[in-house]
């Protein structure tokens, strides 16, 4: 699994970076910069929590597929 953001839905609330600082930092405008490497098992629960906490549901956790660009 890996993180992905829907940049259209994202409104820079910044919850994700607070809940998953291991993988997400914010740029100077408050939008998340993701570490897109596969998530290690110990982070998946935290990642799911961060995705659920996003007020606009912009943080996505995706299974690795060929669709990933």
């Amino acid at each position: 699994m890996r993180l992905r953001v829907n940049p259209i839905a994202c409104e820079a609330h910044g919850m994700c970076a607070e809940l998953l600082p291991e993988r997400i930092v914010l740029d100077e405008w408050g939008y998340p910069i993701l570490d897109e490497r596969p998530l290690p098992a110990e982070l998946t629960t935290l990642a799911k929590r961060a995705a659920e906490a996003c007020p606009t549901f912009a943080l996505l956790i995706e299974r690795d597929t060929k669709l990933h660009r």
Partner: protein
Amino acid sequence: MSPRTDIALPRLLAGMPAHGAVGLAEHRARGGELPYTTRRERRGAGALIELVEQAGLRGRGGAAFPVARKLRAVTAASGRTPLGKRPIVLANASEGEPASGKDRLLLESLPHLVLDGGVLAARAVGADELIVCVEASAAGALRNLTRALSERERAGGDELRIGIQTVPEGYVSGQESALVNLCSGGPAKPTLTPPMPFQRGVRRRPTLISNAETLAHLTLIARHGPRWFRALGTPADPGSALVTLSGAIAHPGVYEIEHGAPLPALIEAAGGASTALRAVLLGGYGGAWVDAGTVPELALSNDQLAAHGASLGAGVVVLLSEQACPVAETARVTRWLATESSGQCGPCIHGLDAIAGEIEALAHGAATAGAGERISRWCSLATGRGACRHPDGAVRFITSALEVFAEEFADHARHGRCDACASAPELPLPSRGQLAAAA
């Protein structure tokens, strides 16, 4: 151009009428009836997709993606959807690039060449609908396309529905997901991909989006075959291409070149540069600058331009004269690119605006220490973080301008505005009225 191309060209632009469009009767008299009418011809050995693959046709909308792979992807995706989800073909002539005019020229003068290509592409992927996307401002193209469609209707019609979608003006409104959005009833704004249009496109159906010029080449490949197509061009970039040449040139306009033709030959064919050149912009405002000193080495194909960090894009070539101020030109276009953001993704909205502001400050000599570092930081923050590739293209344009015009930028940083800053702008942008209408 070289003697060989004089014999073989033009292909697409053969029999260009002085004004008006080539009608259906004349079009059929020249090229014959549309091939691949039977099911067997479409699917059997030597079927259209295979021909396109052998021809090595690449898309002419900017990305130079292999057309056969796109056709196969749509065909495969439609095989995976439940019955009733037949693919749709979009012919993209929206041409939001201000310095490009080739696709509207094709629709205005040779509409049946493009329409035949659209019908053939639809046959290849099993689509039952073709939508031609044209920018609302392209009045001549819209008029002649409408006439061409009624001509076809009177002649018995095609086996599929053909519609026209007018596209609101805007640099990103011709982007693939924006067209899908628009044709599905939404705004002409990009959406998050994947799913890619070939997976889930217009009205959730697998959708082939092909540039108008690409479809015109498809018509000629179906008529003359892949070997004929490959007789021009380079092995990696076969065939001919339309190039819109503008800026400091005696006769600006749309020219058909062989891929790999030397740029000096094109300039000569267009009456020569109107004045000494400072640089050449290749691929439009998502493209890259090349120093004028490099022009003698430049061959117009994507494989050969890659060595210079450039590509042909949608065939846009703009010559910048030595009288222009490259810093003022870069500042003006960068601000325009920032305003052309569809305003959906934060890093694009804020990043391009910040870069434009800093470049304007540089141009006026008002930049503070660290301006260069700030621009490069914002460039990397904007790249790859939008739903579409608009920020990536803008950053490519800006980065190459900073590199090629490094001396002028350094000069402005130290001394502010130069004498050339006051000269008339050279790089084409839509007029203010059009900008206001789009906003």
